[in-house]
């Protein structure tokens, strides 16, 4: 930070705009924040995937291991793919395929749902869920 010195006034005294102690507390604050950012970013945004199907089918898988799971449903199999920390429905036996077109999800709280084939894919983790709306 550039140190600016105020122009002399009346007494002719010069005084820094920001004192050394001010700057110290500023640097400490930014330093702590940067350390927290660096250590915090090691954690993955979502830790696991919960796949629920018809008749109590339930599967919890880690998000960081690639896999393709077949979920049985009333209309036939639904293929769920985990790759690169994201999840998507690869193929489904449902008539419209909305679940496939929903694409990939990666943050905790996000879901892909296939209503006709009774499949719900949810990402779980302790990161704050993204905000839908705010009011004041």
């Amino acid at each position, binding site marked *: 930070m550039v140190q600016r010195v*105020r122009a002399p*006034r*009346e*007494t002719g*005294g010069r*005084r820094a*705009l*920001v*004192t*050394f*102690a*001010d700057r110290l*507390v*500023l640097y400490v*604050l*930014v330093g*702590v*924040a*940067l350390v*927290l*950012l660096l250590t*915090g970013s090691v954690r993955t945004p979502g830790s696991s995937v919960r796949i629920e199907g018809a008749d109590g089918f339930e599967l919890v898988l880690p998000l960081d291991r690639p896999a393709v799971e077949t979920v049985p449903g009333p209309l036939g199999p639904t293929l769920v793919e985990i790759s690169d920390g994201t999840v998507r429905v690869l193929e489904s036996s449902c008539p419209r395929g909305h679940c496939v077109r929903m694409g990939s999800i990666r943050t905790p709280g996000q879901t892909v749902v296939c209503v006709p084939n009774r499949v719900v894919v949810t990402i779980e983790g*302790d*990161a*704050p869920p993204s*905000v839908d709306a*705010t*009011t*004041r």
Partner: protein
Amino acid sequence: METARERKGKASAAGRVARLGMLLGVALVLYAVESLIPGPLPFMRIGLANIATVIALITLGLVDAVAVTVLRVIVASLVVGTFMGPGFGLAMAGGVAAALGMGIAARVALPPFSVVGLSIIGAALHNLAQLGVLAAFYTGPGPAARLLAPALLMAAATGLGTGLVARFALEKLGAIGP
């Protein structure tokens, strides 16, 4: 006109009430202006109203600075309609923590620190207190901890900005030297 420094300590009770009212008005106007500025999260704000708290602290003292802050939060929430809502608790916790922290810092360490340093400390305490309330009552410690780094960065930036504004304002008021 007498300067604030000359008046400090010998201001009459009526004068103090007048100053408190004026600073409360300033705080509310700054709050209103700030609420027009969009932000990423409702509780991550610039903290313009803290300028009034700093001025109250330097010209009137710790008790009056806390009074200006508490009254500002209450009146603002009554106007906006968030009184006793979740945002109210957050604003109150942050505001009181900032005012108390800056007041204590002003008593023990005003020579090494300037008003700018006080403001940075206040901003940091404001955000930390809000995250504390968030962790205790709303989201739990995990999500609040994740917001810690951005909250501290925001505090450094906004504290510096509002501190400089408070410093220039206090200079113009004659409460501190150039």
